[in-house]
């Protein structure tokens, strides 16, 4: 399903991937340098105390010329990547939509709901500077938003997630298999599945299970379903629904063994998180597993400048819930939803990336780029 890039479009992406890599490895560390060398001392001199939180740090850094330049370059790189991806996808939009339609072929495994209302945290935001975000349809049966997302993820992660951008999902599958060898899920639910980058590897790793992949955005689901078909993955169902309120007729109580989310929570809201954890608890069968891959929560031991840099996307790359989300007490939320603290766990899963299959553009050693790391934090709980 991947859009076909022309010779020059590949060149444009090569430039952008290297630009992003340069910003991350050569220039981004400079923010810590200017922070220690001049921003922090200047603040101390005036305020007579150190910074109290990451927001104070951010406001002070906004006046620093180096932070300004790095931020201007980074924001601009995001916008250039959108233009490059959209021009490539839109010139072949008819062909892509036709290909998706042929693969989808009115299958019962793609269930769309045109009457679904978008929650405001999705309707109001064009996430990561993506015009129209995940859900906008430029023509009927459109998949262009997803095709653009798919092509661009590869560029912004520098290929660190593997050629299919599924390193996270493969790492999760591997982690669950090796850590809980007794666990053999029959029904797996992936909430906020997007185009299924990380749901498909679960379906592949557990071929006897059925994966139900839920998202609000029709273009992502159409593209995701077609992509799964093209990959020969049959045990996955794509459903358009709001994870906050899943219809009990279609999603009965205790009907799943495993509920997964991957890089999902930061694009929701505080109220939504509460509701979705309640839904997860309702949907899980006793003995079921819920697992969530996200960037790690901020804690007091993380230097403020570090927190501030991780917050960059929240304020300057249209991820408005990112900052608050990473300060939330997720254990408390899970407990409120009915999970027992002694059944909760957390740790790191590593993205499994095939080295030979890797595009040389990918960063060797997968250096961290605030939010795009190849080693992911995961937390979760068993029900009862």
């Amino acid at each position, binding site marked *: 399903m991947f859009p076909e890039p*022309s*010779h*020059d479009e*590949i*060149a*444009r992406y*090569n*430039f*952008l991937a*290297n*630009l992003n*890599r*340069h910003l991350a490895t*050569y*220039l981004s560390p*400079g923010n810590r*340098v*200017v922070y220690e*060398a*001049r921003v922090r001392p200047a603040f101390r001199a005036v305020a007579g105390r150190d910074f109290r939180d990451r927001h104070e740090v951010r406001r002070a850094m*906004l006046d620093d*010329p*180096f*932070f*300004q*330049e*790095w*931020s*201007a*370059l980074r*924001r*601009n*790189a995001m*916008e*250039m990547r*959108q*233009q*490059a991806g*959209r*021009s490539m996808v*839109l*010139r072949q*939009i*008819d062909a892509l939509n036709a290909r998706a339609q042929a693969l989808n072929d009115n299958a019962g495994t793609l269930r769309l709901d045109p009457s679904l209302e978008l929650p405001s945290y999705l309707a*109001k*935001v*064009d996430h990561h*500077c*993506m*015009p*129209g*975000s995940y859900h906008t349809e*430029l*023509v009927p049966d459109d998949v262009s938003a997803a095709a653009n997302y798919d092509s661009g993820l590869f560029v912004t992660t520098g290929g660190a997630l593997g050629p299919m951008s599924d390193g996270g999902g493969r790492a999760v599958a591997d982690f669950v298999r090796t850590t809980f060898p007794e666990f053999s899920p029959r029904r797996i639910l992936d909430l906020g599945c997007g185009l299924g980058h990380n749901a498909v590897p679960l379906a592949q790793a557990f071929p006897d299970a059925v994966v139900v992949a839920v998202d609000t955005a029709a273009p992502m689901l159409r593209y995701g379903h077609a992509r799964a078909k093209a990959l020969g993955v049959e045990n996955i169902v794509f459903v358009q629904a709001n994870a906050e309120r899943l219809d009990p007729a279609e999603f009965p109580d205790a009907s799943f063994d495993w509920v997964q989310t991957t890089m999902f929570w930061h694009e929701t809201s505080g109220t939504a998180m509460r509701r979705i954890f309640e839904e997860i608890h309702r949907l899980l069968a006793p003995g079921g597993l819920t697992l969530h891959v996200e960037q790690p929560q901020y804690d007091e031991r993380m230097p403020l400048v570090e927190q501030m840099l991780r917050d960059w996307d929240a*304020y*300057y790359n*249209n991820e408005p819930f990112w900052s608050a989300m990473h300060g939330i007490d997720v254990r408390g939320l899970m407990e409120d939803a009915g999970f027992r603290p002694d059944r909760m766990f957390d740790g790191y899963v590593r993205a499994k990336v095939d080295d030979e299959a890797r*595009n*040389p*553009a990918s960063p060797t050693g997968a250096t961290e780029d605030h939010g795009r790391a190849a080693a992911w934090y995961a937390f979760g709980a068993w029900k009862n």
Partner: protein
Amino acid sequence: MDGIDIRRAAGAKAKGKRPWFLADAQTERVMAVAMAVAQELAVTRERLDTVERLLADGQPVTAATIDAYRPDAAAMAERQRWHADFVARILRVFQQELEEVEQQGRELDTEALASQFAE
């Protein structure tokens, strides 16, 4: 696709007030233009690289053979290195700005050096 102005849609602005970081937003717009021009130069350079490789292989060079060319792993690695070097060249001034901060207080300007050596 009928009815979509692709050129306009490709460059559409994302929702939300755009943050401007430099002291002067107009300077930042000039920076955006410069980076876009650099990007297009990189594209042209990659096309030229294709032409050179086709010629070296004794292949016909037409718009169609250039567009159809896909590098092998070795050629791809060379291209990536070229792009990395190219980006480092155009962003040199920021690297040096940082080095200056790192050497903070330990460097003398030319005036100071001149009077020191005059002694």
